[in-house]
């Protein structure tokens, strides 16, 4: 799988997320427009990558922003990470869709909605979603071996649990767990080094 990262983040610094979140909580329609202009393209691309259908992705993108709009009251405008929350909601909507289509039921994993509670997204790195971080991630991703990249793709873009990954890759569960854990540690380590450099 070949990835490209060059999103255009030109508008990302045009308005601080803190101010944007405050306006969203005041139900300012212009704030929703600003939120969409800032994160809509990234959210849409992410959803397309997961569901592989532009029409469905547009429906899910609208659902994403509807959910964010309706849940802004629970978001901490002072300490919250708006971009991280929007992308998490977007991914969850897409993964939920995949699961509903192929009839995958949740067996051992937690419900996705529990992982997107707005109050959880506090004290994260400010301005997390930006072109520098995307470039760093791409660099880190390329350092992974093929198996490690595959487990990241299966986890993030297909929403497979480790057991499901093991079945898909026809590998022992322990092996898949090691690949997943190592890959995620490498990615995070690379990102942290880039921040501290």
């Amino acid at each position, binding site marked *: 799988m070949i*990835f490209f990262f060059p999103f255009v983040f030109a508008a990302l610094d045009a308005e601080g997320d803190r101010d944007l979140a405050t306006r969203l909580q005041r139900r300012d329609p212009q704030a929703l427009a600003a939120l969409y202009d800032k994160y809509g393209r990234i959210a849409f691309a*992410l959803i397309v990558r997961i569901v592989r259908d532009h029409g*469905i992705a547009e429906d899910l993108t609208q659902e994403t922003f509807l959910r964010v709009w309706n849940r802004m009251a629970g978001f901490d405008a002072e300490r919250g990470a708006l971009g991280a929350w929007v992308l998490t909601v977007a991914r969850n909507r897409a993964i939920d869709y995949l699961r509903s289509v192929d009839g995958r039921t949740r067996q051992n*994993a*937690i419900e996705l909605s529990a992982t997107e509670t707005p109050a959880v997204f506090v004290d*994260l790195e400010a301005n997390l*979603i930006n072109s520098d971080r995307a470039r760093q991630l791409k660099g880190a991703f390329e350092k992974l071996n093929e198996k490690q990249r595959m487990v990241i793709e299966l986890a993030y873009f297909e929403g497979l649990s480790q057991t499901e990954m093991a079945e898909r890759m026809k590998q022992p569960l322990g092996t898949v767990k090691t690949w997943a854990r190592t890959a995620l540690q490498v990615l995070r380590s690379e*990102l942290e080094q880039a921040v501290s450099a």
Partner: protein
Amino acid sequence: MNPVNDHNGLYELYVLGLLEEPERGRIEEDLRRNDPAARALLRRALETNAILGTLAPEVAPSKHLRRRVLSIAEPRASRLSWNLAWVALSACLVAGLVYTGVQRQGLQAELEQRNATLAFLRRPETRLLQTGTAEERRPVAKVFVNGARGVLLVAANLPALEVGRAYAMWVVPKVGGPRPMGLFKPLADGTAIHLQAGAVNLDEAAAVALSVEPDGGSPAPTTTPFLITPVAE
């Protein structure tokens, strides 16, 4: 080694909703204890997972999508949809009065009253007041039946549907299975008006109900019916 750090590398899977037992239980226990190290790992995992979203290839959405998203915040949408709903509702009542042959004098008075009601509802400053927050509001509906004309549903606070799903209206007879009365999808603000035209045997109908179905429809409800409205004798 700090037990929390033993789970280092698993928090990303946890926040992706993919971690299985027993690891998931251990992490949840760490978080329940409000362990600072666990909180730090959770924050880092949220960051990593958010950035992973930028790995997706760039794709441009249509301009139409922006309009769709912005319609979520249109303050007039709710009022407009309710006005339309009440206009449709009142029109249906008027038609019902005509059909049932109310005497001319009484009908004239009723029509004048309905016209006044319509004029009131058509005023742009007329607003529907609702109690509670959006998340607290439960689905509500008014159902109008006319044995010769059909069933009209006016609903609000309907939860957003997953893609590929629609609301189905059913007439539940006193004997036998529910009869499908059409599919519909609510507006972004959760309101809906659905009219299923056609004769309905009200003598045999016990209730009108809704369920969530595939948007191609189902011969019978596949999810638990809700907003069940009895058809009074």
